[in-house]
């Protein structure tokens, strides 16, 4: 394994049972992502990119193959192991923001610090991130009082608050207008460049993928171009 690789995937397959039918979502994926790299996985609906996202994030186990995230092998990881991975190694940004509606933006971020077993206070470095994201003055508001763009920035802050090795983003601009999309993508690129944050972004939008250092195309459960 390349020492610089944050993600290394070899011969990854995922088969879902839908009724009596086996659905092969991934058919032998090989992929390597370096530390500090910003990579976009692109492909049409059904290409397997979301399944790859779920496996890399430890949300679902692989059927076969090797998956290493920051040196941890997910292939035979238990549920508890995958929970630990999500707690300490991976941060998520989703298309639908997925903030807890009953908590303020600040508490949405703090609860992740609590889950990660971290000190609840925001350090100066993270305060700087909040300023960079432009949400310092919106922290006391609940998600319903925030615009889509602001919610997605809160979601980004939440995803990186514990300093994860990798930030996984699934269609992060899918629910945003073009202006907010550009702002969020700029922020992600900024996080990658300034802080060396490794980012893997799933998108079907080629313009969004243009913000990444590298694009990986998927089709029918396979990587077709790197």
């Amino acid at each position, binding site marked *: 394994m390349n020492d610089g690789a944050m993600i290394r995937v070899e011969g990854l397959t995922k088969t879902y049972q839908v009724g009596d039918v086996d659905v092969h979502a991934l058919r032998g994926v090989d992929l390597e992502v370096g530390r500090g790299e910003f990579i976009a996985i692109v492909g049409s609906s059904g290409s397997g990119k979301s399944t790859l996202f*779920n496996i890399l*994030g430890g*949300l*679902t186990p692989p059927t076969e193959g090797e998956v290493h995230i920051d040196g941890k092998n997910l292939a035979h990881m238990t549920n*508890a192991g995958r*929970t*630990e991975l*999500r*707690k*300490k190694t991976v941060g*998520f940004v*989703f298309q639908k923001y*997925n*903030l*807890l*509606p*009953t*908590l303020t933006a600040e*508490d949405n971020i*703090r*609860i*992740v610090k*609590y*889950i*990660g077993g971290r000190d*609840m206070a925001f350090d100066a470095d993270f305060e700087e991130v909040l300023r960079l994201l432009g949400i310092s003055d919106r922290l006391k508001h609940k998600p319903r009082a925030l615009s889509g763009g602001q919610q997605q920035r809160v979601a980004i802050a*939440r995803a990186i608050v514990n300093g994860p090795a990798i930030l996984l983003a699934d269609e992060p601009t899918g629910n945003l207008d073009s202006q907010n999309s550009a702002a969020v993508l700029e922020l992600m690129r900024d996080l990658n460049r300034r802080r060396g944050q490794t980012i893997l972004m799933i998108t079907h939008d080629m313009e969004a993928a243009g913000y990444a250092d590298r694009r990986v195309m998927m089709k029918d459960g396979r990587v077709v171009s790197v």
Partner: protein
Amino acid sequence: MSGYTERLINKLVVANLAHRPVRTLLSVLAIAIEVTMILTLVGVSNGTLHESARRARGTGADILVRPKGSSAISSSSSAPMSDKLPEFLMTQPHVVLATGTIVQPLELFDTITGLDFDEFGRMSGGFRFLAGGLPQQDLDVIVDEPYAREKHLGVGSVLTLMTHDWRVAGIYEGGKLARVCVRRDVLQRLTENPHRLSQVYVKVDDPKRAQEVVDALRVQMPGYPIYTLEYYTSILSVNSLGLLRNFTYVVIGIAMIVGFIVVFMAMYTAVLERTREIGILKAVGGSSGLILGILLRETLLLAVLGTVLGIGLTYGTQWLMLHVVPNSLTQETMYGWWPIAGAIAVVGTVLGAVVPGIKAVRQDATEALSYE
């Protein structure tokens, strides 16, 4: 866990409950009714028995003689004893007075008691009348204050009992013998029990000798249940009455099941509605323990709120009984049962949250996150 994190989780718990106010209110109300059912039943059982004991003590007697074959706490609805018995008892050492009563059941818990007012007056010190006085004619009746209040009676009112119209001659302070009293000879005649008695009250020269006299009487009168009043009033408790005790347990069981079902439904719905939020917590690394803990805290908060409201409602039922049916039932405030009812509510609600909790913990994170 530090104070801040504790507050954060508690904030999430309260916010989750506040997010669905109607469901939360209904859950709390259902648990409150469960608690009220338990406390009211136990309060009424104890209150009514203690009121009976208070009235028995109000006779001023030291010993109670009941008919052969009857138990200490069976109702005295028949009159199988001869009215010569008090005369015999008066000849026994240390007995200074013996007077018999006849008790006729009316509807439900009501009875009418026939007594010799002169003898009873000497034994108990007499009734303390709030209005009117002792019966002057055959169909005169005296009633205690709670009975008069419930039936809206005053002196001179007509009260129909046993198909006869009785004139209320007096209203006395409660706590003595019975709620409705008439002349003994009249009641014996009307019930076709001439010269028969339901029970005999005995007064001795020294109350400390009551047990000694009871022992002697048992030798003289084999087969008669004879008790000191002290013993008789002590056994008027829920635990002494198997049927009442079992009934109490059945109602507690039903109350628990009601609480269980309501909380089960509420938490099951809550878990369904919050599928996505549970998925979010899982996605950010929330453990099964954290998710189960949040649900359990919500359940416990519902149980505590329901218990507090239930205790409050119990005062409401107490007030209603005191003002609407003061004669029929007496409800005591059972402070000792507050924690028991609270614990029953907690057990029922926590059991109700177990299955929804397990469902939440077992949810697949990816499916939960895609839940609409």
